[in-house]
C-alpha cells in the first residue's frame, strides 16, 4: 500500500497536477466567479484548441523534435474547410461543391499533407526540426494568405456552428473533441508498440535504430499526426468564430510548447506524457482566465505568465534532478 502511494507521488505528472490544484484553489478564493459551472466550461472550451495542438506537440517533442508550424497549419486548414464548404472548388471548369463532412475531410487532409511534408524534411532531407517547421510556419501562413486573399471567410453552415458553440450531454462540443483526442492518444502512447517506439526514439535514436525500430517512419508519422491535430484545432477555431481568419493561430505554437513543458515533458525528448500536457494546458488556461477575471493589467499579465512557465519548469527540474 505504502509502495503504491510512493509510486503515485513519484509520477512526473503529480507535480504539475499539484500546481494546477493549488492555482484552482487560489482562484476560488480570489474570485467568487471562478468556480462556477459556466466559468469552468469556459476554461475547458478555451483550452480545447490548445489541447488538440499540444497532444501532437507532445509526441513531436518526445521524439526530440519541435513543431513551430502548428499555428499556420491551423489557419490554413480552417480556411480550407470554410472556403470549400462555402464556395466549393472550381478546377478546370469543373465545379465541386463540399458538404460539411467534405470540408472537414479536406481540412484534415491539408493538415496531414503539411505535417507529412515536415516529417519528410526531417527524415529524408535531414533538416533540423526547428528549421524544417519554421519553414513550414511561413509557407503555410503564406498559403493561407494566398487562399483567403487576406480576408476572413465568414458565414458557415449550422453544422459548423454546432461544432464550435453547440453542447452535447451538457458539455460543449469542443471539449468533447479534445477529450476524445486526449483519451485516444494517451492510450496510443502507453499501450501500442508505436507509442513506446516514440519514447524510445527520443530517449536514444541510435539505439532505437539498432534495435530495429523504423525510426524514419515513426518520425514521419508523428509530424503527420501533429499536422492533423493542428487541423482539428483549426476546425474548432473556425467553428467557434463562425469564420476563418487568415491570421488565426499566430503564436499558438508557443502556448502548445509551454503546455508540454509545464506538463513535465523534457524538451530533449524521451520523457513525459500526454496526461502531463493536459495538466500544463489547463494551468495556462486557468491562468489566462484568472488574470482576466481579476482584471489584472494587460502589461502585468505577460510578466506573470512568463514567471509561471519558468517556475513550473524549475520546480520540475529540481525535484527530479537525478534524471538530468
Amino acid at each position, binding site marked *: 500500500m505504502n509502495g503504491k502511494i510512493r509510486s503515485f507521488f513519484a509520477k512526473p505528472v503529480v507535480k504539475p497536477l499539484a500546481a494546477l490544484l493549488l492555482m484552482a484553489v487560489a482562484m476560488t478564493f480570489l*474570485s467568487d*466567479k471562478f468556480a*462556477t459551472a*459556466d*466559468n469552468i466550461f*469556459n476554461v475547458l*472550451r*478555451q483550452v480545447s484548441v490548445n489541447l488538440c495542438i499540444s497532444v501532437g506537440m507532445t509526441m513531436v517533442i518526445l521524439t526530440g523534435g519541435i513543431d513551430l508550424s502548428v499555428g499556420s497549419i491551423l489557419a490554413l486548414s480552417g480556411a480550407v474547410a470554410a472556403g470549400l464548404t462555402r464556395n466549393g472548388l472550381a478546377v478546370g471548369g469543373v465545379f465541386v461543391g463540399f458538404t460539411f463532412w467534405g470540408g472537414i475531410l479536406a481540412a484534415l487532409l491539408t493538415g496531414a499533407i503539411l505535417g507529412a511534408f515536415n516529417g519528410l524534411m526531417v527524415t529524408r532531407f535531414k533538416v533540423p526540426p526547428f528549421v524544417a517547421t519554421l519553414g513550414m510556419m511561413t509557407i503555410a501562413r503564406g498559403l493561407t*494568405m494566398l487562399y483567403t*486573399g*487576406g*480576408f*476572413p471567410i*465568414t458565414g458557415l453552415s449550422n453544422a459548423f456552428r454546432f461544432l464550435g*458553440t453547440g453542447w452535447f450531454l451538457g458539455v460543449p462540443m469542443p471539449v468533447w473533441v479534445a477529450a476524445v483526442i486526449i483519451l485516444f492518444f494517451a492510450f496510443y502512447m502507453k499501450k501500442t508498440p508505436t507509442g513506446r517506439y516514440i519514447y524510445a526514439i527520443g530517449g536514444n535514436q541510435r539505439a532505437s535504430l539498432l534495435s530495429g525500430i523504423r525510426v524514419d517512419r515513426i518520425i514521419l508519422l508523428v509530424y503527420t499526426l501533429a499536422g492533423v491535430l493542428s487541423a482539428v484545432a483549426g476546425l474548432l*477555431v473556425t467553428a*467557434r*468564430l*463562425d*469564420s476563418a*481568419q*487568415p*491570421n*488565426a493561430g*499566430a503564436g499558438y505554437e508557443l502556448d502548445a510548447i509551454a503546455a508540454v513543458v509545464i506538463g513535465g515533458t523534457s524538451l530533449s525528448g524521451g520523457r513525459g506524457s500526454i496526461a502531463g500536457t493536459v495538466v500544463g494546458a489547463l494551468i495556462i488556461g486557468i491562468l*489566462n*482566465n484568472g488574470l*482576466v*477575471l*481579476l*482584471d489584472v493589467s*494587460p*502589461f502585468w499579465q505577460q510578466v506573470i505568465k512568463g514567471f509561471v512557465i519558468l517556475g513550473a519548469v524549475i520546480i520540475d527540474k529540481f525535484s527530479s534532478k537525478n534524471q538530468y
Partner: protein
Amino acid sequence: MKLKSVFISVLCVLTALTGCRQDGGGSKGRVAVVISTLNNPWFVVLGESAAQYARELGYEAVLFDSQNNPSKEAEHFDNILSSGYKAILFNPTDADGSTVNAKAAMAKGVPVFCMDREINEPGAAVTQILSDNYSGCIALGEYFVETVGREANYVEILGLVGDNNTWARSRGFHSVVDCFEGLHMLAQQNADFDQNKAMEVMETMMQANPDIQAVFCGNDAMAMGASQAILAAGKSGRIKVFGFDGSDDAVGAVRDGRLAATAMQFPKTMARTAAQFADRYLSGEHDLPRKIPVAVELVNPENVSHFGNFGRRD
C-alpha cells in the same frame, strides 16, 4: 548527375516564381507600397487600393508587407532605395520606429507619403494622410452615451497595448465617456486586435461581471469576437457592442443589429489621395500640404445603408 538535377530544379523554381510576380502597370516608373501588415483585411484593402490607384495613374506598383515589424520594414526600405523606385506610399509600423526609414528615403530623394498612421516627425514625409482615430472615437463615445445611457456598466477590449492607435482610440473614447460619473468601466483587457482572443476575453469578462450593458472594442475584428461570445452566452441584445474600422462584416453586423455601432475609416480614400499626391509631386508640384486628416465617420443603424465596401456607398 546530382548537380545537374539540382540545377534543373532551381531553374524550375525560378521559372515558376516569375509566375508569382505582381503584375506591373504603365511606364512612368515604379512606386513602392509599404504596408505595416497584410494580416488584417483592412490593411489589405489599404495596400491593394494604393497599388491599384498608382497603376491607374500609370506607374508600376509593388506591394511590401512589413509584418508589423519595424526591422522588416527597414529591410524593405534598403531594397527599395537601392532599386530605383520613384516614390513610396507608406503605412508605417510605428510612429517613432519608422522615422529613420522614411528620413533615409527622403534624404535619397525618394518622396514618402504616409497613409493612415502617422510618423512623429513632420519632415520625414512629403505628406501624411491620416485617419483621425482620436476624433473618430470621440464620435463613437458620444453615440455610446446616447445609446447606452448615463448610468451603465461597461468593459473595454484594447488592441495591442504597445500600439499607439490602440491608445489614440481608447483615449478618444474615454475623453467623452469618463465625463459621466454613472458610466463605470468594470474591466479593461487587451485582445491584440484578434477575433478569437477577444471572444475568449469577453467570455471571461462576462463571467467576472454578470451585470454589463456594453463593450467598447478597439477594432472590428475584436467587436465581432465579443459579439460571438455574447451570442454563445445567450445575452444577445442585452450587451451593446461597439467596434472601430468599418470592415465589411462589422458594417453587416451593424445592419443586423449585432453591433451597436462602428466607425468607418476610409482606407480607399487615403490610398487614392496618397497615390494622387505622389503623382503630383513626381510631376513637379512640390508645394503639397504636410498633413491631411481623413475624418472617421460613425456607422450606426440609422445611417448604415450609406456604408459598405470600406467606404461610403454614395
